[in-house]
């Protein structure tokens, strides 16, 4: 196992999947995770679209993979500095501890958009306005309630919060929110069949296997209403519910609605780790995501020797895409190690 050392920054799906595949090909892998647990954003999810597989299963599977003898896992390790010196990659964490290896994989993933930048939507102002992440947390609890702890009669989802929005500088589509909204609306209807669910959208983008089917199911089976119009203002009513304003564009008429919960489908942005480290090693691209050498053919390579990318640190990706991508990354790293 001489000079087959690999450092992986980020113990999310991308990191672990790559680590495991490298470990199988007898590399000694060091996974550095800044949180206390591996799994990254998976930890905030209950069920996965479109299959509704329990996230715990996936998580369980990851933690098994991370047990592999060739994998050294360091949690609570926040890497602040990266540099390449005499053919070795060095990663220094906050405490000054340095890790070295022949190759380095950046799998620092994404974070969700801070909805408070869209003040007009009232997030952080009206308690009835929550983000998709907070809703998912409610699913974990197993009960959806209004701020007053009542059962919501009406829930509205708003797509494209922090994505496709020039005002906050994110021109791109986050790709996962549409289907996520469908998933969440179905989960709500399964928990609270009598609750009305409305989904406000600019475009519904169901470009994935079984996505369209799930969309249909939400309409046919669960009677979720889809309204084409972007909510532009939210305000609190006297009884502390949320009143939303939009145009029912297909009807060409203004629309007003009072809901118990307004769920903002917050888009994905590059995580701070991605942006900072990416900037340090000169692979920072558009919107702070890490930039691969070539989208077609060399998507895991970078301009830097021995530095590789995997998963949603490059762009918004779904879980299956991420895992496939990190397996590809593992393969690229093996090629690299074999050449040296």
């Amino acid at each position: 196992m001489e000079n087959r050392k690999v450092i992986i920054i980020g113990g999310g799906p991308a990191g672990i999947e790559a680590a495991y595949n490298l470990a199988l090909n007898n590399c000694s892998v060091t996974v550095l995770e800044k949180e206390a647990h591996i799994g990254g954003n998976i930890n905030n999810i209950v069920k996965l679209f479109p299959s509704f597989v329990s996230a715990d299963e996936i998580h369980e599977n990851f933690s098994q993979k991370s047990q592999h003898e060739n994998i050294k896992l360091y949690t609570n390790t926040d890497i602040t500095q990266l540099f390449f010196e005499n053919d070795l990659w060095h990663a220094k964490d906050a405490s000054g501890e340095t890790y070295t290896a022949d190759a380095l994989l950046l799998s620092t993933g994404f974070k969700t958009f801070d909805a408070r930048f869209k003040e007009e939507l009232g997030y952080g102002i009206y308690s009835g306005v929550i983000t998709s992440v907070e809703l998912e947390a409610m699913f974990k609890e197993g009960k959806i309630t209004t701020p007053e702890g009542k059962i919501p009669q009406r829930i509205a989802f708003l797509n494209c919060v922090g994505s496709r929005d020039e005002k906050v500088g994110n021109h791109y589509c986050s790709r996962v929110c549409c289907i996520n909204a469908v998933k969440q609306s179905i989960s709500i209807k399964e928990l609270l069949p009598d609750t009305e669910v409305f989904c406000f959208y600019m475009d519904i983008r169901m470009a994935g296997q079984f996505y369209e089917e799930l969309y249909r199911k939400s309409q046919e089976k669960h009677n979720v209403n889809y309204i084409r119009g972007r909510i532009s203002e939210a305000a609190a009513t006297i009884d502390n519910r949320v009143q939303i304003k939009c145009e029912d564009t297909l009807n060409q008429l203004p629309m007003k609605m009072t809901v118990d919960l307004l769920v903002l489908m917050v888009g994905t942005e590059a995580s701070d780790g991605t942006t900072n480290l990416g900037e340090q090693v000169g692979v920072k691209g558009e919107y702070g995501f890490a930039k691969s050498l070539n989208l077609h053919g060399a998507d895991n390579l970078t301009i830097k020797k021995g530095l590789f990318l995997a998963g949603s640190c490059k762009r918004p990706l779904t879980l299956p895409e991420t895992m496939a991508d990190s397996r590809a990354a593992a393969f690229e790293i093996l090629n690299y190690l074999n050449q040296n």
Partner: protein
Amino acid sequence: MKNWGFTISTSRTIDMDKADLKTYNKITEKVPSAKRCLMCGACSATCAAHNHTSFNFRKCHLSFRRGQFENLAEELDKCMLCGKCKLVCPRGVNTRAIIFNMRIFLNDLNYKKISL
């Protein structure tokens, strides 16, 4: 000509073969961002005039784009130019500029000539 007691009703079809799609280009020359509009309706939803009347900026913009100018000028006069629409637009469209350029091209308004 006889009085028939009725006239041939005109079709409500937007005939893209006959419609005047050129004039809209004049708008996009002046306001390039107009092209970016994806008709999400955020503007019309937040519109201050919208609280009082049926005025619908998005609709006006679309009609103009499709060359449907019928009583558009009167509609556009309802705008108070307050600019809320511009603030909520996700595509950063310069809505106010579109509005009064539309007015100008509908010959509803022009700059006063001041003799110096």
